[in-house]
């Protein structure tokens, strides 16, 4: 694999507010299987960051281990990345975020990386409400080790191996809602129209934002008998609402023709507009989200869209009351209390 890509940019490529083209948000060529859902998600991340005019170098990408965790190499090539240890991305992201609160942290994980080996860390990063976007590229199987079922595989679903999964599935979104995650959404890698605004809303949210993206594994789990296959998801997908993310600087011009609209204002003044077919779904209520998820599961459907938002929760830095300046910029002068203070401290030890 070549570390260098041509830097040539066509002069007519559209540019965002910062003057960057979409190409400036791309990464290395993907080495995943052709048609992998994960590549579509990478593209959606690129699109979302491009459209939001995010400084590429002000993003830190972190991941665990697995097919999903390889993807940070394939987007945002100008951002620092950290492909850490299996299931440990949440703790590494926590430390990184503590060191510099001013960057955007995008964590990428898989269903094995999150729902099995990393379950402990996932649970705790959610309840700490770390300010990050946590993307699960969820394909219901372990790709790199050749197709074993994962903990998010539905009971009865069978992959290319042909054996129906005998265990209950973990619903990461339902769990995250219960854990107090302040933003929970579910998307589908094959539905960019929905995924890009979901990611933009997650980026705009201050606090822990889970985006669980169903992302079919074309090699091991795209069978007729799998509930994580392209055709199954397309046939069984329901959305809570059509999502529009309105950045703070933009005037609200969207028009809705039918149904109800719910607006959620975010910390930085931006807003999420949810154009809903069902008036009863209030995304700020945890219980509504859990009920809706269970309801759709009973019907054999997969509920997507924004499931829960709570803008009132403090993020980790606010909880810890850390100083406004990033900790990694503090100098000796700001950190070291000096010898005189030291000698004073010793008075208590005599």
């Amino acid at each position, binding site marked *: 694999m070549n570390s260098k890509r041509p830097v040539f940019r066509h002069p007519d490529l559209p540019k965002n507010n910062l003057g960057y083209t979409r190409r400036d948000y791309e990464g290395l060529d993907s080495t995943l299987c052709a048609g992998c859902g994960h590549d579509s998600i990478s593209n959606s991340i690129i699109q979302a960051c491009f459209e939001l005019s995010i400084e590429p170098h002000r993003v830190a990408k972190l991941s665990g281990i697995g097919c999903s965790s390889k993807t940070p190499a394939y987007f945002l090539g100008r951002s620092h990345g950290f492909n850490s240890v299996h299931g440990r991305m949440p703790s590494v992201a926590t*430390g990184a975020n503590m060191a510099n609160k001013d960057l955007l942290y995008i964590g990428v994980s898989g269903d094995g990386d999150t729902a099995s080996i990393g379950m402990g860390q996932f649970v705790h990063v959610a309840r700490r409400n770390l300010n990050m976007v946590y993307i699960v590229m969820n394909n219901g199987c372990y790709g790199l080790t050749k197709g074993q079922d994962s903990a998010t595989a539905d009971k009865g679903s069978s992959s290319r191996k042909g054996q129906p999964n005998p265990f209950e599935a973990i619903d990461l979104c339902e769990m995250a809602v219960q854990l107090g995650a302040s933003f929970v959404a579910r998307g589908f890698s094959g539905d960019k129209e929905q995924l890009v605004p979901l990611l933009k809303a997650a980026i705009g949210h201050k606090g822990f934002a889970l985006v669980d993206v169903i992302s079919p594994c074309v090699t091991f789990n795209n069978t007729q008998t799998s509930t994580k296959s392209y055709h199954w998801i397309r046939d069984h997908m329901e959305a809570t609402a059509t999502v529009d993310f309105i950045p703070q600087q933009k005037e609200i011009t969207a028009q809705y023709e039918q149904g109800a609209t719910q607006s959620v204002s975010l910390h930085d003044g931006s807003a999420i507009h949810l154009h809903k077919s069902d008036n009863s779904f209030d995304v700020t209520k945890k219980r509504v989200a859990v009920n809706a998820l269970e309801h759709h599961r009973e019907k054999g459907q997969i509920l997507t869209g924004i499931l829960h938002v709570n803008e009132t929760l403090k993020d980790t830095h606010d909880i810890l*009351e850390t100083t406004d300046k990033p900790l990694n910029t503090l100098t000796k002068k700001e950190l070291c209390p000096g010898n005189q203070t030291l000698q004073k401290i010793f008075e208590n030890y005599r």
Partner: protein
Amino acid sequence: MKNLKRINDFVIRFANVNGSGSASANNLFAKAVFRLGVPVSPKNIFPSNIQGLPTWYEVRVSEQGYQGRRGGYDFIVAVNGQTLEKDYDDLLPGGYFFYDSTRALSGHYKRKDITLLGMPLTDICNREIENPKLRPLLKNIIYVGALAHLLDMDFSVLTDSIAKQFSKKPKLAVPNIRALELGFKYASDHFPGACKLSVKRSNKLSTHILMDGNSATALGAVYGGATVAGWYPITPSTSVIEAFDKFTRQHRLDESGKRKAAIIQAEDELAALGIAVGGAWNGARSFTATSGPGISLMNELLGLAYFAEIPVVVVNVQRAGPSTGMPTRTQQSDTLACAYASHGDTKHVLLFPCDPKECFEMAGDSFDIAETLQTPVILMSDLDLGMNDHVCLPMEWDDKRNYRRGKVLDKDQLESMTEDWGRYLDRDGDGICYRTYPGTHPEKGAYFTRGSSHDEYAVYTEDTDAYKRCMERLSRKWVTARTLVPAPRIKRSGKPATWGAIFFGTSTYATYEAIEMLDKKGIALDTMRLRGFPFQDEVLEFIDQHKKLFVIEQNRDGQMRTLLINELGIVLNKLVSVTHIDGTPIDARYISQSIEAVLAKTPKGGAA
């Protein structure tokens, strides 16, 4: 019977039930000795339990300044019925047995070679103290008052200590001072001239402090500029973080009162180190504190930090293993587990502090070393050092000293760079490459950190040559590390010595005392106190200068001996183990006796 008769030179042991408030009373006693200017060394030997199990507090009073354990005890305050018989049996001949005589002693207690000092503590409490809740606590203070008389101590030091302790709640001082007086009065009425051990005011201590190693380590982290700490509660390391929290709340706030430190209690030790690794990767000085079982869990991320070259600091306050072992007892038994922690070829820089002063200094230095080398550094403390108070001179911080942040490129340096930058490109030949923090420059300096094999430009590779180049460069870095870790301290006996002794950490003070004891018997040994790993050339030179050497350490298998043999290629039988493994701090008598026993079997003229 000959009573022990000594001034400022004895060992007193308190046998209590844990959770009864005895620790603060016993600490009051130790502090009073300290405030009388007499070197003192308290050791808390406590159970892994909240309430109801035996606990001991041993105080060595030593005008000569011996800080290690001596071995044996001359005076016992026996207020725990569960251990009464053993405490009685273990008292040295000529010693003093102070006990609660509210209950008469059984037929077991027939020794003629000790002095019995029975005081009806429970009776006195029930009679004199109205509030039943206070009785168990004040019972301990009463015996401290009695000790003041028995040991001929200046009583005002105790009352002043109480006043200082309760300066914010003076009302609480009153019953405590009364309890001291009750004990003192009873002892002066009933035991006149009974005890020939005494504590006299001395000038042996000047500006000295009495401090636990964990507080000193935490201060070192504050002064060393640590800002991110991930941790998981585990005895005996917890108080490192608690102290770091306290000191940063007191001395690290911004103008608006916000904190210049982020401390996160993690879900386990995997996450604790993960947090520190994330913080260090992102340019904040970061650390975690743990003990053996935590080190086991941290092996995974230590391998990542080694291979991805992340400068993280781990404080290991060791305890008695394996597994849960004896979690409240001390050992130096993680040497090998830390030196080679994680899978694959890994080696880690270790620092071995021997007292709170070195805890402070080495904790401060550890961040400089880690960032200079871009690798984990493990500070090897232990329960004895971390949780017990030690007399030492106050540490100094040189205000002119700057943090050595290592090879980090800032925005301007990246901007002016004309050649291609590679995160793992060794430009200087010392194995250490240039790193960047995320968010530094819009176009330059971004790279992908990974635990998978990578080339000089941090790109994933399975190219065998690239992998080999990387691993060999890490070996070059290891050579550089030898110039950065603290040098050993070598002491010559001044006489022709064929034998040497090697030790480190909390084996230090007891060993120095043992060496003096042996010297008086005509056995001369040169000594070398190890302070860091990797070993420098001086370590090998010292070993080469002697025919045989003792390696004194607190574990079963002689782990430091193994490490020396493995790293320096020493002939196996040249290094003789002296190991102490019962979980209590090693003592001088044990060391000297062990050495004598080996030498007795060795043909005259030294090593065979």
